């Protein structure tokens, strides 16, 4: 109904174009047979993808740093974030609002400042920035997303489900594990996906807390823009887009099965 109005249709098209155009340009450039930054007309080539996978700095940034860091950071963020969400929603704590604000801080502080702060803390404590600091930093970024997604799902679960379970013989803990947790599963997975994407595409924090041996893919792309600037970085970006896109599609597929629509 609203979407039928021509002006609104035009607006929708403009918004979509604005969102998609840069991504399409990047993908286009990555298939360019020449080293110019332009969308190929006619011939396409995979040479920049070949270059990407042949270059150790790119390959390692993806397979040895970005992917493992994102996996570890999102796993940690999911566990901590889910537990925090349960605590924030269910526990009878006095300063609930204060706790929630603290957990949400990474969303409010510019991540470049957060990165700088973490760097200063690490240095003053005598740590070297390395894989671990990167994982911890990204975990911090992911936690608020997990809390938000899992928390709102938890609030939406009818407390009568647990009461029904208890009337059937469940202790409060059993009722939570057997009735609440299974119904949170898709929210936990979706929170984990968010956390993974946040880590996988972060550059601000990584600039500070990544060590010399832990260059993430976004940092590698960023530094390459200054040095060489051939379409390998477009290929690298496209690889990144494909990974994130596949993940989201996969999750939606799983959710659909779970939700039963």
């Amino acid at each position, binding site marked *: 109904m609203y979407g039928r109005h021509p002006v609104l249709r035009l607006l929708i098209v403009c918004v979509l174009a604005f969102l998609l155009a840069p991504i399409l340009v990047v993908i286009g450039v990555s298939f360019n047979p020449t080293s110019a930054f332009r969308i190929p007309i006619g011939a396409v080539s995979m040479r920049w993808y070949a270059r990407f996978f042949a270059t150790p700095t790119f390959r390692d940034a993806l397979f040895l740093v970005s992917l493992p860091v994102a996996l570890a950071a999102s796993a940690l963020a999911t566990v901590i974030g889910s537990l925090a969400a349960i605590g924030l929603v269910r526990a009878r704590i006095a300063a609930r609002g204060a706790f929630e604000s603290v957990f949400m801080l990474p969303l409010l502080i510019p991540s470049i400042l957060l990165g700088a702060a973490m760097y200063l803390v690490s240095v003053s404590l005598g740590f070297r920035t390395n894989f671990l600091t990167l994982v911890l930093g990204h975990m911090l970024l992911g936690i608020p997303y997990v809390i938000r997604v899992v928390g709102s799902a938890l609030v939406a679960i009818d407390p009568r489900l647990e*009461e*029904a379970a*208890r*009337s*059937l013989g*469940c202790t409060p803990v059993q009722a939570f594990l057997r*009735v609440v947790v299974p*119904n949170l599963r898709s929210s936990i997975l979706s929170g984990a996906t968010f956390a993974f994407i946040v880590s996988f595409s972060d550059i601000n924090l990584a600039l500070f807390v990544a060590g010399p041996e832990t260059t993430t893919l976004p940092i590698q792309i960023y530094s390459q823009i200054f040095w060489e600037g051939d379409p390998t970085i477009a290929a690298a970006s496209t690889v990144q887009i494909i990974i994130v896109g596949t993940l989201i599609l996969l999750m939606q597929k799983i959710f659909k099965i779970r939700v*039963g629509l």
Partner: protein
Amino acid sequence: MLAQDIALELKSVTKIYKGSVTVGPIDLAVRQGEFFSLLGPSGCGKSTTLRCIAGFETPTSGSILLGGERLDAKPAHRRDLGLVFQNHALFPHLTVAGNVGFGLALRKVGAGEITRRVARTLELVGLAGCGARMPSQLSGGQQQRVALARSLILEPPLLLLDEPLSSLDLKLRQQMRDELRGLQRTLGQTTVFVTHDQTEALAMSDRIAVLSNGRIEQVGTPREIYGAPATRFVANFIGESNTLAATVEGIRDEVATLRLPAGQLLRARLPAGTTRRVGEAVWAIVRPENLTIQPAENSQDDPTRLAGTLDTVSYLGEDIHVRLRVPGLDPLLASMKATRRAEVALAVPKIEIGIDACAVVVLAR
């Protein structure tokens, strides 16, 4: 009531919340196999009482006994009571069979046994063969049956129903009402039913406790509650009634003569054992269906017939509802079957109202 007949007993149960909401003291005894309703408007304490029995609220004082044993000392999960909610509260991640078998699985009953008993219970509630479906694929009525089956499969000594029919539409509600009652009778299942719907309570219950402001107003069979309300609240909450302020003018042979404010007289048969004094201020309560209407005949001079006029007449198909004006009184409500005779009586504007002395309930004012 013999002690061994009593299934559930509440002794001076109170629940005091911080603030002003207070329930109790509630004293109740529910018989073995009885369908017992807690009826009252929202906020009357019926749900709190049910939640105290279920174990989700702890009474501030008093005790709850089931089969003579203290129930209130046990946590909710060891009370082994059946509980059905208004919104069904089915586990959305489990199939129908998974929901119904939940309690048995928790008790480590073998898989074969669970399958057998789930199938039998689903058949009992009329859902044979639906075990593999998900709750979201069922209609409201079917979900309600699954919720019922989930409780009944454990053969609970007491089944608690918290407004289980309120989420269903009217037709289905009436059908489920009969089904639920039939099932309860067949199984001899002791049941406590919470509702705000007086029709539901009257139609289904063996006995009803009417609650208001956290206290029990009256306990009795539907007939007693409707025909002989113990308080003004009960008279007005259950069905329609006309409440008239009156003074006792005289008593003779257990029939009291009451004088209404504008001087008219009304006769009321007092139940055996009631004591009313001459001169006492009372309420006279009359149900609309106990008013009879005739065209006014000037020749007749019966002081117990009230002269009045028709205000509004509403035809409701089967019934006619009439609002009457009588000098000195609030408008009276009368209802009658929509017969030819009734229509003749209602065709003239000036009428006489007759009230059967046996149908007048007298309460202290």
